[in-house]
């Protein structure tokens, strides 16, 4: 679907006309990410992050395929194939490895901003529920891929991370331990686990790419949202994706690559853990087992459940950790307010900022040792996390009085308020 005023693909060269009759791939690209896709004119920089996430996935796939050419998925040689061969003997192997490891972090940074953009501007609401649902699926697939990828170097954190994460399954009453052993192919992570993780780590990115195609397809049916949350009313409200947003995304991509390069070339270990430069040793547990930074908020939620209550504490923790992501599937129906953008929802906006702070604190606690002070703070923040999505937001949606909306995107743009960012709104109040 598209707006009636969308540009139409008209191939001029004979070859392109011939191709369009047989396989209209250029037409598809033209309508999807070319001049044939009308986009609201008022998108701010937060709308760059979808394209950036796609770029991050592409970087991961390209670097990953080359790394896989040199990597051994064998518990005896995995560590040395990376730290001996790739880092030292493969031409630019160190670059590929750092780019892939830090690329995962960049992918998560970009996707977290993309998700919070969606939360602030109500991108999950009708008519874009399916875009949101597919996005949550992508996020889950990313987490699985990242976890399995982190196991592959077979360092101390790889091994013990795998041990802890697969241990979640043993929290299932009765059959948990059986499931864990079945998933690992043994009683502890070893060759069988390493090989299946490598196989799946290679497969899942392509599944992610496929779901991204569905995500974009679902997005193109209603068209992109915008910072006002007001529907597109006419041609004056939109510009063609190309060249307007391809140019803007080009600039965004430059800034993204700049930060990425700074990490890869100057701080390649900043987001990693020193223990992963020690080869896996099943007989020696590291002092503090911590996952990668992008899992810290969820790890904090897991560790907050310290007391048995009807169910064992561990099961509560695992349920809550998975629940904290699965609840996002219900968000479009939990927040029943018809107003999309938080720019016009004073109470929801306050709750949003509390949530941002809450998740940052959870992340900090998740990366720290499980000392009582961090556990107490994490318990309070975990409780807020669930209350925010499951109680507070649905309640606000029913009781809040929104600020008057602009009549159209163009009206908002002409008033200088078309692309108001969360920070601008926060500062104005």
């Amino acid at each position, binding site marked *: 679907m598209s707006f009636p005023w969308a540009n139409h693909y008209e191939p001029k060269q004979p070859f392109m006309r011939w191709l369009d009759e047989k396989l209209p791939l250029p037409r598809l690209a033209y309508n999807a990410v070319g001049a044939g896709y009308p986009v609201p004119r008022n998108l701010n920089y937060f709308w760059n992050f979808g394209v950036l996430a796609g770029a991050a996935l592409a970087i991961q796939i390209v670097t990953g395929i080359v790394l896989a050419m040199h990597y051994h998925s064998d518990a005896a040689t995995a560590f040395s194939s990376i730290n001996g061969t790739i*880092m030292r003997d493969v031409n630019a192997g160190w670059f590929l490895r750092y780019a892939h490891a830090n690329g995962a972090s960049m992918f998560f940074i970009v996707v977290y901003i993309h998700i919070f953009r969606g939360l602030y501007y109500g991108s999950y609401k009708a008519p874009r529920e399916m875009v949101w649902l597919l996005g949550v699926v992508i996020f889950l697939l990313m987490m699985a891929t990242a976890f399995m990828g982190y196991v592959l170097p077979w360092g101390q954190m790889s091994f013990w991370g795998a041990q802890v994460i697969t241990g979640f399954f043993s929290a299932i009453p009765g059959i948990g331990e059986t499931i864990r052993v079945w998933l690992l192919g043994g009683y502890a992570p070893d060759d069988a686990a390493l090989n299946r993780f490598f196989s799946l780590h290679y497969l899942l990115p392509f599944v992610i790419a496929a779901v991204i195609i569905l995500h974009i397809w679902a997005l193109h049916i209603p068209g992109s949202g915008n910072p006002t949350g007001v529907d597109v009313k006419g041609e004056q409200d939109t510009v063609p994706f190309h060249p307007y947003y391809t140019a803007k995304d080009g600039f965004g991509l430059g800034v993204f690559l*700049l930060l990425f390069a700074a990490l890869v070339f100057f701080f390649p270990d900043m987001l990693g853990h020193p223990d992963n430069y020690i080869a896996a040793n099943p007989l020696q547990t590291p002092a503090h087992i911590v996952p990668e930074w992008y899992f810290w908020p969820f790890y904090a939620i897991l560790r907050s459940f310290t007391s048995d209550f009807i169910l064992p504490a561990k099961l509560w923790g695992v349920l809550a950790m998975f629940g904290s992501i699965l609840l996002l599937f219900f968000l479009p129906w939990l927040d029943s307010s018809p107003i999309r953008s938080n720019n016009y929802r004073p109470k929801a906006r306050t709750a949003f900022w509390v949530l941002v702070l809450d998740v940052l604190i959870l992340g900090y606690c998740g990366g720290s040792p499980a000392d009582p002070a961090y556990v107490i703070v994490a318990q309070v923040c975990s409780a807020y996390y669930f209350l925010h999505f499951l109680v507070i937001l649905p309640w606000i949606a029913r009781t809040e009085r929104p600020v008057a909306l602009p009549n159209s995107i163009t009206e908002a743009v002409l008033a200088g308020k078309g692309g108001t960012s969360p920070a601008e709104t926060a500062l104005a109040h």
Partner: protein
Amino acid sequence: MVRWIAALVGLAFAGVLAIALVITVWGVASDSTPKIWTGAPKSAETEFHKHPRDAGLSSAGVFGKFDKQQLQRGFQVYKEVCSACHSLKYVAFRDLTGLGYSEGQVKAIAAGFDNIPSINPDTGEAATRKGVPADHFPLAFANDIAARAANNNAIPPDLSYMTRARHGGADYVYSLLTGYQDQPAALLKEFPEAKTPTGLHFNPYFANLNIAMPPPLKSEGQVQYSDGTKPTVDNMARDVAAFLVWTADPNLETRHQYGFMAVIFLLFSSLLAFGAYRNIWRDVKH
């Protein structure tokens, strides 16, 4: 309906967390010596562990470069002192050109190692031979059991990645090597049970304060430098730390060089992209 179920689920999680919170707070409050930031009670480790001192190496920072003279001195310390117990298995002799040695010098260094495991071509029995540049540094012990047997049940770790496998990196290595001392009287007074056991050595930079490794650098002149640098314990420790930065990160200089090229290129192209963006949008208010 969805909202009612959701609210119940949310309240259930929050309720269980509230119970857990009360129990955690109660646990801290009823502890006779509460130490809220480190769950563990006060101990010699929590009170006397020290953070590494700055080794002041030229390789630190984004402009970092190796001091090749220092790397060669550090290599000498490794070869003459550390290599008795510690392997360097990910480093090959051919890599030593990175320290500024010529190919001929590398050949000579490799040939100086006559304990490279090999197989006798006539009998098929295990044998040893002289090293060639393609060989890696030989292991210090045949296997972990031999290493344990010779070292009071502790395995001397491989040093290839030592400066990246510990918090504090090179500063940690330098501090540890220069940090051996007698146990402070204050420590023994406060924690008499924490007296360093026989066979271990007190070192405040080591995680649990008692390290199995005896002080490896004991006296000035233990290694004879040929470049006129005074072989004090401090200098030897700093030099070997610098060498281990190189073994753990031999591409550091290339990485920094490429980094500057990449950043300059990307700054320039981002500026161009920004110009293109503003130019294309010049007539569209947004």
